């Protein structure tokens, strides 16, 4: 047999044998008195919303006194390649990270799996933590995982729909099939809207490339469109708006960046706030608070954002109270 191949195998086996013996021994490392906690932050992909969460986390930790030399933060971004998540989670475990923070569901799942019930894991920006199996219930997580959920304020969004287009009867909802959060929000909105008496029509895209055609079909069939918090739809927002503008159909999105891209108005939860709260929770847990009874925080308080240019284009007169609210607290795009 090839000598190089044999020696490679021999080296690997020898290494494993040594590692097996070494790591079998109990770990006797002691914590020093000037102990600096290590926190691992794992993000799924670079994306404006997720980056804001990351930014918020850092400042949330700072607010708890964890900044500069008082904390060691290891930030990893898998850039959507899920095979990296495992390696990165294990890197944290190997650094003996005291706590890990996951941004987006696959990242959080990977961390939770690696922690295996031991070290605390804080969630940031996970839409449905109980449905994803990360926590038992949001009130009593029951294990080593808790955090902040980014549940969309759907009822408030429906109120915005009613205020912007009071005469609308048919509501179209568009989401990406491969986005767990988008699907979850879309289906919940469907229930809410049906209760309020709307005829609801659901539309899905599997990639942003499908947007043009699906939007064309949708725009001819509905009075108003709801676009949930969904990465796919957010990316293809411009395409959606091009189509709906031709049919004069208003779009009510879930996030303020989507209003900027041509949505009419929304009440949006700040991603930064979500990250900030996660950072605060992480700080509390580092100080000794137990995760098992630390309820998952759901941020629902949002701020009004309106796009006046878009409203004018569609011939919509936005209620004065709404514009005023956006001017004082939220954001107005002109």
């Amino acid at each position, binding site marked *: *047999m*090839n000598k*190089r*191949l044999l020696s*490679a*195998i021999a080296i*690997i086996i020898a*290494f*494993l044998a040594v*590692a*097996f013996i*070494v*790591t*079998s021994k109990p770990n006797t490392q002691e914590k020093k008195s000037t102990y600096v906690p290590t926190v691992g932050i794992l993000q799924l992909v*670079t994306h404006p919303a997720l980056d804001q969460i990351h930014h918020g986390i850092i400042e949330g930790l700072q607010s708890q006194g964890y900044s500069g030399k008082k904390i060691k933060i290891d930030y*990893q*971004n*898998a*850039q*959507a*390649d*899920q*095979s*990296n*998540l*495992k*390696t*990165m989670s*294990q*890197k944290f*475990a*190997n650094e003996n990270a005291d706590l890990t923070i996951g941004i987006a*569901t*696959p990242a959080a*799942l*990977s961390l*939770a*799996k690696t922690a295996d019930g031991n070290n605390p894991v804080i969630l940031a920006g996970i839409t449905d933590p109980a449905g*994803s*199996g*990360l926590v038992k219930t949001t009130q009593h997580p029951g294990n080593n995982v808790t955090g902040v959920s980014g549940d969309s304020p759907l009822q408030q969004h429906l109120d915005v729909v009613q205020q912007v287009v009071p005469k609308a009867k048919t509501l179209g909802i568009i989401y990406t*099939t*491969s*986005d*767990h959060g988008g*699907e*979850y929000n879309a289906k919940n909105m469907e229930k809410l809207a049906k209760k309020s008496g709307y005829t609801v029509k659901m539309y899905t895209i*599997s990639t942003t490339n499908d947007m043009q055609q699906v939007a064309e079909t949708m725009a001819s069939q509905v009075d108003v469109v709801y676009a949930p918090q969904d990465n796919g739809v957010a990316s293809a927002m411009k395409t959606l708006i091009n189509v709906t503008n031709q049919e004069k159909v208003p779009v009510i999105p879930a996030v303020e960046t989507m209003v900027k891209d041509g949505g009419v108005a929304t009440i949006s939860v700040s991603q930064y706030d979500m990250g900030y709260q996660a950072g605060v929770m992480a700080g509390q847990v580092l100080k000794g608070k137990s995760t098992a009874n630390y309820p998952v925080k759901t941020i629902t308080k949002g701020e009004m954002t309106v796009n006046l240019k878009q409203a004018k284009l569609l011939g919509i007169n936005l209620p004065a109270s709404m514009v005023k609210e956006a001017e004082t607290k939220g954001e107005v795009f002109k």
Partner: protein
Amino acid sequence: MSMIVSSIGQGLLWAVLGVALFLTFRILNFPDMTVEGSFPLGASTAVTMIAHGIDPFIATIAAFLVGTVAGLITGLLYTKGKIPVLLSGILVMTATLSINLRIMGSANISLLNQKSIFSIKILQHLPKYFDSVFLGLFIIAIITAGLIFFLQTELGQAFIATGDNPNMAQSIGIQTDRMTIMGLMLSNGLIAFGGAVIAQSNGYADINMGIGIIVIALASIIIGEVVFGELTLNERLVAVIIGSILYRLVLLAVLRLGFSTNDINLISAIVLAVAMILPQLRHALNLDKIIKKGITPHD
């Protein structure tokens, strides 16, 4: 040290993909894109079954069977439908996205607090990360031994002949279409099996987990070939496994050197490109002869 153990464990698990792709990429000589679909197909099948309370071993075997169906469809499109192989694979890969969504019912299913093939008792008593090493070694050893045995049989030889020269193979009475379909079924079955194992190691199945899989599988084949040079067919299969481990170690080194993780795709592409160029370079510079002269004693 335990990071290296973890990388070896991951390398052994991912080696299933390398060995499976070897059947189509190297023996049949064509790039099969189906794998980017059959990998998450296996993962979603197994994870969904486990989440419904079915035994993880049965679920993993079921993933293999579902994967062979994906391979069968690509094979039929290619041989009977006369669609170019690259396109057949892409068609099936695209279709599986919808199928996977149907199977899972959502984009992501977690396995936290569920049994998996990693929950066997013996594995629980091992030091950190040795569960993947042992289970990975066990799985890849069985698969490789099985393939080595298969390739020595009459059927296996006919399969190899089909890849080497389809015209000649046909002239001596080998039904090349059947051989191609069989190869695609076997390869995609193994890929789906690998998907099932890796999903259980990761703790979840995700609709997007197939993206970039073909690069990982190719990396283990190419690194194995470049590092170990001329090998017999059986040795090449073993080299793929070592190649898979080496690829994980390279990734680990890149992470350790403090490179931004934003660059990791670029870096792995460069590693692969260099690995693929190296043989030409060595040939062009005549290094082969020089090295041989240097290490062989005068006769």
